[in-house]
């Protein structure tokens, strides 16, 4: 038997795209001649990659999480107001922000699974509530300041022996990525994918579909809170910090070949999709493409990626299993 790398289905294309983009960066940008350039890229991409990992858990189990952008904003604004420059408040507030993320995920998950509301609607409602409540609480504009300790995670670096300075955010990202990859190989992880693929089958074989979906939402909320901590440190306090991130994270996940509607795709590919997106923006920037056209390119690319996945992979899949509905959006069947 020849050894084949155990790549999940759909992972290969995004890795090829990522490789091409990285090679492109090396050719175009002088900063990418040495590892530090790539490290900086990874640091910039870390929050989006973490969000994409969280979003993956929800999407692969058959849902959507539109609330992560608002959750990131809420996390940063809450932290700034509560810390208000006070160094000693850093640790409790970080724990609080993480707890808040878990709570929001829990609410999303419980409403989706117990009240049978499609997750698209639940998280859209959560988006509205979070956006409104955050600014209601702060009277319209973010107030307070983050402490230096809080910001370390977003912009500081740790001196790792042999490797030199590694940004905290990259270390956190790697830890999350490894944990997520291991989790997806465990029984629970596989059941999560199965719940997105064929809910009835999982139920009949004794799987707790509701609990699995709930877990997906909680993980997504928790990781959004982590991303909020990194972004708050990296970019500072602003009311716009999380806006549009939910769509960007979903784009990244889809770019990673994960099927919307659930049941197919790997978490590493989702993270690679996020890194590709960030690398693409950097490359466009270096090539002098105006920032305004960035979104147009992003739009073309995700359409192309999805079309490739469903047309190119279609034949292969048809030989093995019945094609899933591609035309319909199927947020958490109710």
């Amino acid at each position, binding site marked *: 038997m020849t050894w084949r790398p155990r790549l999940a289905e759909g992972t290969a294309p995004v890795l090829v795209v990522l490789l091409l983009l990285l090679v492109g960066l090396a050719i175009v940008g002088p900063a990418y001649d040495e590892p530090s350039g790539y490290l900086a890229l990874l640091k910039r991409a870390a929050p989006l990659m973490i969000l994409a990992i969280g979003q993956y858990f929800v999407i692969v189990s058959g849902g*959507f999480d*539109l609330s992560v952008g608002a959750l990131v904003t809420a996390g940063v604004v809450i932290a700034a107001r509560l810390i208000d420059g006070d160094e000693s408040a850093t640790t409790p507030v970080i724990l609080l922000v993480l707890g808040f993320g878990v709570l929001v995920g829990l609410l999303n998950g419980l*409403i989706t699974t117990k*009240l*049978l*509301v*499609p997750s*698209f*609607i*639940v998280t*859209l*409602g*959560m*988006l*509205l*509530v979070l*956006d*409104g*409540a*955050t*600014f*209601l609480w702060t009277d*319209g504009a973010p107030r307070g300041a983050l402490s230096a300790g809080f910001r370390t995670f977003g912009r500081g670096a740790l001196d790792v022996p042999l490797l030199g300075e590694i940004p905290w955010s990259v270390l956190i990202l790697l830890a999350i990525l490894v944990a997520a990859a291991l989790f997806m190989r465990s029984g629970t992880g596989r059941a999560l994918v199965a719940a997105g693929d064929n809910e009835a089958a999982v139920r009949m074989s004794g799987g707790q579909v509701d609990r699995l979906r709930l877990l997906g939402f909680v993980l997504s909320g928790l990781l959004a809170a982590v991303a909020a901590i990194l972004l708050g440190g990296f970019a500072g306090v602003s009311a716009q910090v999380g806006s549009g991130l939910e*769509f960007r994270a*979903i*784009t990244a996940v*889809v770019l990673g070949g994960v099927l*919307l*509607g659930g049941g197919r795709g790997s978490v590493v590919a989702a993270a690679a999709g996020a890194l590709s997106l960030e690398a693409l923006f950097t490359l466009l920037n270096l090539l002098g493409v*105006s*920032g*305004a*056209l*960035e*979104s*147009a*390119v*992003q*739009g*073309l690319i*995700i*359409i192309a990626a*999805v*079309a490739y996945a*469903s*047309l190119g992979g*279609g034949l292969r899949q048809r030989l093995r299993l019945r094609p899933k*509905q*591609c*035309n*319909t*959006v*199927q*947020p958490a*069947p*109710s």
Partner: protein
Amino acid sequence: MSTVQQRTAPAGPAAARPALRLRLTPVVVVYLALVTLLVVGSVLVGLRGEVLLDQAGILNILTRSTALGLVAIGQTMVILTGSLDLSVAYLIGLTSLIAAETMAGQNGMIVPGVLLALAVAAAVGLVNGLVITVLKANAFIATLGVALILRGYLENNYTGPAGDVPRGFQHLGYDRIGPLPVAALLMLAVAALAWWYLSRTRPGYHMYAVGGDLEVARLSGVPTRRVVVTAHVLCSLAAGLTGIYLASRLGSGAPYVGTDAGYDLESIAAVVLGGTLLAGGRGGVIGTIGGVLILATLDTIFDDLEVDPFFKDVVRGVVLVTAVALYARRMMADRTRGRLT
């Protein structure tokens, strides 16, 4: 599918019930909620010594409903078909610009301006529909992609309002018949047309069929691709009308007039609030208009009560989720009672 089933339902176990009993369908629930809201709102506003439903209040509610109503009518069609459209917000901005720039302040250019804007809207809808049916992209991603492309175009070419709408055309946005704005009446006419199309014509039935079960519809000989493309073209046309209406109100085109109001997610919220199933196949335009009116009434009441604008978002989110949870419960209850759903 479900229309057919609903129609045959009285022959089943439901026939045993008194025929005149009002079934609490989502549409009924929406309008009951609207009436309740109006009563409660009138009382609350009345406690402050003001009147909610005076001339200005009615005008306010209807004006707020017009733009969102137009988008939501189109959105209803795509959602019924089992799709959705996230590109409407940017399309509204684009069509408002095209209309205003073509008109360029001349009364003679009104008709070409409107037609050009609608043509561009139809083309965008065609692209949406073709990407979904031919490239087999998920509707969420396909329309998000098209939205991003439109956004790139707008950001690259415009920094602010552009074009000039002639006085004559601004009448559309501001004229009234009694207390009723002309534009709101036109919106209701479009809604009536959409209702007729969806519930009285074959292509309309096909939309329900495709949304109910794509595969079954296809096997029953419904031209599913054509139905999905049609729904998207109609949805984009409705968004185009919204853009034209907003141009006439603003006096010029504005690139972010659609996104600032969040018409993409807001219209989906209105449709779902109106009892249409997000997965498609059930619901209709009448419920959607009810949903739009509820959102507009909430806004007006909050304005009269001088509630913090951020509080509105919180209430909106809670109302949306609560409503859909109620509909879901009713469907489950129906199902356990053995009714066809």
